[in-house]
């Protein structure tokens, strides 16, 4: 395929990605090195607000941005180098904590706290998703043909349900005296508060994520199982291979590309864990990198937002994912070269 045909085929797609992803990305990259702020001046101001029957008026000095002739806020943009990254990473504090060997202090610094949780979350759910997905796929494949359809249908439900709603429904089941917590309390005969300490919330979040993603893995693996070469399985039986050996030497290698595919998708998605934090309102105990970015970005009630730090934190998140993806991607490169 020559270049012009290729360009014609991929053109529309590339154009849309450039317009809506690449350009904003460039601006995010740029913003992480600049700070844009209004120029404030201090003025005396009298403000009257309602009390219950009368008004209370106060005069105070406030900072107020300067406006130009057209009534727009005057802003200035400054190159600040790596300062926004420093503000996110807080390297001095982190380094002091590490050199004191004081991990508790390190885990109260936002970025490192978020990184710790994000990595734990990603690396613990990954094997769980793969193993559960594989397990479900094999079990479906084992089941009688008549029930496969309904079982696949039920298995897919956690995957298709709107994530926000999935999180909320799990939240109701466990929060306060939610019925599953009540069940646990009755079973263990003790008072349980699952949202009262970090580790239970983390476990809940991971379980939710596995519940949500394992069906996707399962359905992909199930599709893969349909194309396992039956002849080689049968000859393995004749050679006296046990069930486990057949799984290990024939089925798993056959599914390997799919396992890598699922892992890649899962790495990307779980490194950006966010819905769980908001849905379980866990920010008092654990936060994630994407939540940190979001928190910098949401304006507070007075309209201030930390765009530069948000950009820096977004760039750092992206670098993190890129590093995690190097391993699975090396294989794609080989395939790509080998396939043609």
């Amino acid at each position: 395929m020559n270049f012009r045909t290729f360009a014609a085929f991929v053109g529309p797609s590339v154009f849309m990605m450039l317009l809506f992803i690449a350009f904003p990305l460039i601006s995010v990259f740029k913003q992480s090195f600049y700070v844009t702020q209004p120029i404030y001046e201090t003025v005396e101001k009298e403000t009257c607000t309602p009390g219950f029957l009368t008004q209370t008026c106060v005069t105070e000095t406030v900072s107020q941005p300067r406006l130009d002739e057209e009534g727009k806020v005057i802003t200035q943009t400054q190159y600040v180098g790596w300062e926004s990254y420093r503000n996110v990473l807080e390297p001095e504090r982190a380094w002091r904590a590490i050199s004191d060997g004081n991990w508790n202090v390190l885990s109260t610094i936002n970025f490192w706290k978020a990184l710790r949780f994000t990595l734990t979350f990603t690396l613990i759910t990954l094997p769980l998703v793969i193993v559960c997905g594989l397990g479900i796929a094999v079990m479906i494949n084992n089941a009688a043909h008549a029930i496969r359809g309904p079982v696949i249908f039920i298995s897919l439900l956690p995957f298709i349900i709107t994530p926000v709603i999935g999180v909320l429904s799990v939240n109701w089941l466990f929060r306060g005296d939610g019925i599953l917590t009540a069940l646990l309390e009755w079973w263990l005969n003790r008072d349980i508060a699952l949202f009262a300490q970090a580790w239970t919330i983390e476990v809940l979040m991971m379980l939710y994520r596995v519940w949500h993603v394992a069906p996707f893995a399962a359905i992909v693996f199930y599709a893969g199982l349909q194309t396992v070469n039956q002849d080689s399985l049968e000859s393995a039986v004749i050679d006296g291979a046990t069930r486990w050996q057949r799984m290990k030497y024939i089925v798993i290698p056959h599914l390997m590309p799919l396992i890598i595919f699922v892992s890649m998708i899962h790495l990307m998605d779980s490194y950006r864990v966010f819905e769980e934090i908001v849905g379980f309102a866990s920010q008092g105990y654990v936060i994630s990198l994407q939540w940190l970015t979001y928190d910098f970005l949401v304006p507070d009630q007075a309209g201030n937002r930390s765009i530069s730090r948000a950009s820096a934190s977004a760039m750092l998140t992206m670098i993190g994912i890129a590093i995690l993806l190097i391993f699975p991607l090396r294989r794609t490169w080989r395939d790509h070269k080998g396939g043609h």
Partner: protein
Amino acid sequence: MSSRALRQPLSLRLTSNIFLAFWCLVAIFPIFWITVMSFKSPVDAFDSNALNVIFGPTTLSNGNGLSLLDIILGIAVIWGTIALVFKKMPAMIRAYSREGLEWFGWVIGILAAAVGFLVVFFVILPAILNVLNPLLGPLGRDILGLTTEHYKTVWIDRGFSNNFKNSLIVTSGVVILSLSVGTLAGYGLARSGSNLAFWLLIVALIFRALPPSALVASYLPVFISSSEWLAPILGENAPTLYGKPFAVIAVLVAINQPFTIWMLRSFFQNIPAELDEAARVDGCNHFQAFRRVIMPVMWPGVITTGLFSFLLAYNDILVTSLLLDAQNQTMVPAIVGMFNRETTTTDQVVAVAAAVSITAPLIFLVLIFQRQIVSGLTAGAVKG
């Protein structure tokens, strides 16, 4: 596994099936539970005793309930509908619809089934039961508290149908545009061995890895002021992109492109290149080859990829909540708004009813396309 040599011992099959049953329970339970909650009065819905939630004593004492007979007949009608749709309808559709227009037959068939079900379930059945219940004594007495008032609140008082319509517009727009742009790109990438193609894929992958909240926030000011900065190009007619469904569709398509082109590329790679090469020998150019040879065989992969696009658009909250205003808001942000609003417990149950309402179309979709998803994946739409 059909072969005799591969047959498994009973114990293994039993364990496997027990685990499978357990998984199904885990998979369905939260969804089942919010469905139950949505039919109860607020006091029952948030009760900490599971039995109270299921049987709804408060709901019952408010005069909303079902008798044993209601339940039996209701289940019978639901079961009958499912049986009709799954057993009879495929055959009928094959019999009555013309070759190549089967999808149209399905649409008509499912619409007819849905309307028929609604009429029977909500009009004919209550009328019959109103007569029968008082005649049957204990069988006709209400035993299960259940109320549909929250659904009435959501769909009628809160105007949720407007959100439904908006979701429909955004979602179908995203699916159609995403697939048409994506199939072309996927095909191009699959048939080109150049380094450029590889790096495009890698860049796309990095794009997919981006934290979306960072991108989305930078759209808002640009979208709101678009009539000002577009004016030099488009003059008077320059649109304000904020609040326009088409702008949101474009954004969602772009965000979804990386995944779409990766999926479709792997799928096209599994279609033998000899097919279109043969067509090109016959004098077709690449586009003609694509249209004549590839298009007829690409549907399983396209349907699977389309389903993922559908899920992304339908479930999106980040883009839609920020870039649409209330008049064209889609369902998910509307529901989250309901939850976050300063709410009473009643409002919470209403929001739960809304949450169940938006899950229903997803369930229908999976029911219809389930087989295509599996066959699409089997055909290699996913391959590293």
